[in-house]
């Protein structure tokens, strides 16, 4: 077992983990951060995307021990209480989700995308989200959601 200390959604967690433990499993099983979900076993779907020190990662492809000393933000920490992050607001407003299973990862990837590129074109959005699969929406309204979020956050197209 290895000791790790990670700030997750604003709270510090100290934990002893098996070295093989994936970050996503530690978040879900040890911390109860079940808003972050698993959709595949080949790092293709992106449903498990979280922010690690502000950048999006697929938490199925990161070991929990690699997050030692880092800051992790999940969908549950993006906005606290009844608050809404602009990306969350935009996804609701533009109907950018249906079943919602890809949504935590999609939102976190969009947050990262907009932090890098505050006013992305449609092609840049599609390219930026190509690691996150959705079966419900056909991505049309996800693209619109990200464009709308960019507007809300002050980016201009």
């Amino acid at each position, binding site marked *: 077992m290895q000791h790790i200390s990670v700030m997750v959604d604003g709270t510090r967690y100290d934990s002893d983990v098996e070295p093989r433990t994936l970050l996503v499993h530690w978040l879900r099983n040890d911390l109860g951060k079940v808003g972050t979900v698993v959709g595949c076993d080949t790092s293709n779907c992106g449903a498990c995307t979280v922010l690690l020190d502000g950048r999006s990662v697929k938490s199925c492809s990161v070991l929990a021990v690699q997050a030692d000393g880092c800051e992790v933000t999940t969908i549950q920490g993006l906005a606290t209480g009844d608050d809404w992050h602009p990306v969350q607001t935009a996804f609701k407003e533009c*109907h950018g989700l249906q079943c919602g299973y890809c949504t935590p990862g999609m939102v976190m990837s969009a947050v990262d995308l907009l932090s890098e590129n505050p006013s992305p074109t449609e092609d840049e959005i599609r390219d930026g989200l190509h690691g996150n699969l959705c079966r419900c929406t056909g991505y049309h309204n996800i693209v619109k959601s990200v464009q709308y979020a960019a507007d809300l956050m002050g980016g201009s197209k």
Partner: protein
Amino acid sequence: MTDILETGTAIGRPIRRKEDAKLLHGRTNWTDNIQLPGTVHMGLVRSPMAHARIAKVDLSAALAMPGVVGAYDAASLGDMNANVLCVWPVTDDTVMPPFPALTGDKVRHVGDVVAVVLATSATLAEDAIAAVEVEYEPLPAVVNMVDAVSPGSALVHDAAANNTSYVYNLGGGYDEATATADVVVKRRFVNQRIIAGYMEPRAVVAAPMGMSDEITVWSATQIPHVLRVVLSLSTGIPEQNLRIVAPDVGGGFGGKLQMYREEILALQLARKLGRPVKWNETRSEDMVASHHGRDQIQDLELAATKDGKLLGMKVDLLANMGAYLQIITPGTPLLGMFMFPAIYKMDAYQFRCTGVFTNTTPTDAIRGAGRPEATFAIERMMDELAAELGVDPMELRVKNWIQHHEFPFTTVAGLTYDTGNYEAATARALELFGMEELRAEQKARRDSGDPVQLGIGISTFTEMCGLAPSRTLGALKYAAGGWEHCTIRLLPTGKVELVTGTSPHGQGHETAWSQIASSILGIPIEDIDVIHSDTGRAPYGMDTYGSRSLAVGGQAIKKAADRVIENARPIAAHQLECAASDLEFRDGAFSVKGDPDKSVTLGALAWAAFSAHNLPDGIEPMIEGAATVDPEDFSYPHGTHLAAMEVDTETGKVRVRKYVCVDDVGNQVNPMIVEGQVHGGVAMGIGQALYEGVEYDADGNLLTASLADYLIPSAADLPSFITDRTVTPSTTHSLGTKGVGEAGAIASTPAIINGIVDALRPMGVTDVLMPASPQNVWRAIQAAKGASA
């Protein structure tokens, strides 16, 4: 016809969804989130071989491992090894081999289940799976359907001669009707096997509930109500002791319209061990374990006069059942049986379908279920016929389709379409598409020999959905009915509980059902709570599939809401001291006709009915309305989908340059949700056309065994869509609505392939295998070049 769409306040508006707050904040309850004390984790020992005799199963090493609390094969599970049930024997002599949860004699597909292990953690269960020793004696694998039905083939089931489950015939008279045909187009199309591809893998938790006899099963399923019945029939557990809950479910697309062996095993083992049993699959496990769909070889003939008038169509299908019959495996291709003639008038239609067993994962319904295959066939054939006749493919369609003034119209397949307006949808689609400019560009590219050619793909589709009139289902030998239920309860504080038998997994029922009830009852949407997907709280229902939830369930909501008003009326009359017939109901309140100041709200009546201090004689306390509605007919949405396809003739790479679709789904409760359904459906149909396909090698090994090998399109692989709707209300459904969930997936696949073939037709190409990957397109081009050389 109802007038609520005119008077309602909430219906017909793009109201933002109630569901989204929790989904966007991660406050979700997926089955895999459920962690009960004392849970043991189930692991399945799956066959690595497509076809083999099981010589020996040795569980001893697994049982000796720390943390392992049980391991069973078919023999040791004994009479708890219940069968997966097929509820749709399509003919009197359909061969339906037993499908036990654990197979005992042979394995019949890669992923077939030989044994089950139970351990105190999921990782220990994984280790225990690896410790089970199974000796297999390989048998010849039956993979290809044409070979499977040929004499001398190995058999998947000894009871199924020629690997045939059934042969189904419909219609006739093709030869007579087409004797004078000037043109007969014959084609063989392959509608390839695909997966549902829901983002949430399947999961099950089964738990005995304390001191009672109840066992609760949480499952990522589309069909909690149907599942309760079939699990009871299969296991013998009294139905009243089973509670099935579908918590938040992350997509279904037909793939979770199933009774799966894992649900049986979790239930039986929870009972056996007296503690909660949990199973959640990996995605790679899902690829072999969850049913696949489509997979037809279609031999088609379409006959016409030289003027382009259709005379008849002949359809001969080989439909791949896979290794076993799941819940509606045999019936799935027959859901397309009535749809080959589609929107066209013709004199004769002759259909035959052979259900074929192979050593592959079972097939069953996936979004559209039989209708995408039929629509692909007819819309591709219309283009082929147009090319043969040298006429514009849209002109050929216009010449043969049912005109808007001819409804209701009984088709050659025997369905009566209530309404439709193909002219209006097509006119709007052509306007949005810019057909003339694109045809001009196509000509310019052809004339200049541009390596990137442009093609125009058309799909003027219809479908039958809103499953379904129970009598029709009975006539087709489906075991259950197609009704839907709703109960609406007024709570003492004036809030409303709306209990529905539909089981949403992304469709936004909580929002849309609230809109319907709000419009009728005059109670704000936020005061209406929609209860669903739990047989303990919503006991009656037929669940969600076949674009039925609004088309059928919506009618039940309307009827239940109307009954709430009627049940409240005598209490209102008593309070207002007038005759019930003197009351009118509007905007959530009863008032006396001609004296609008004398009124009482539904909320006030709810309290009066709760306190029951002053009810009229003979009126029982509490106010509710319940209704179970069997639909009068299917609903028949339609639309015109147009695709402009760029095809690089040097590399075979294609690009969707422009996609326009105008759908007619009748009245819309929430246009935003309707549009979202169209987007997702179109994307799934494009996925089949361009990217997706389950592939096996000759030995029955699954080559597309993970999402790294099976290509579900990403945002970068798809365009934005240009969408619109025409509105031709259904006359057989009380809200005037039609289904929408499957429409896009049915319509888009032939539009895309027609576009690619149109681009390449001058080169001699008449078909492209799906998925139209660069490789398949390039091969089609090379084959055509070779043929012309």
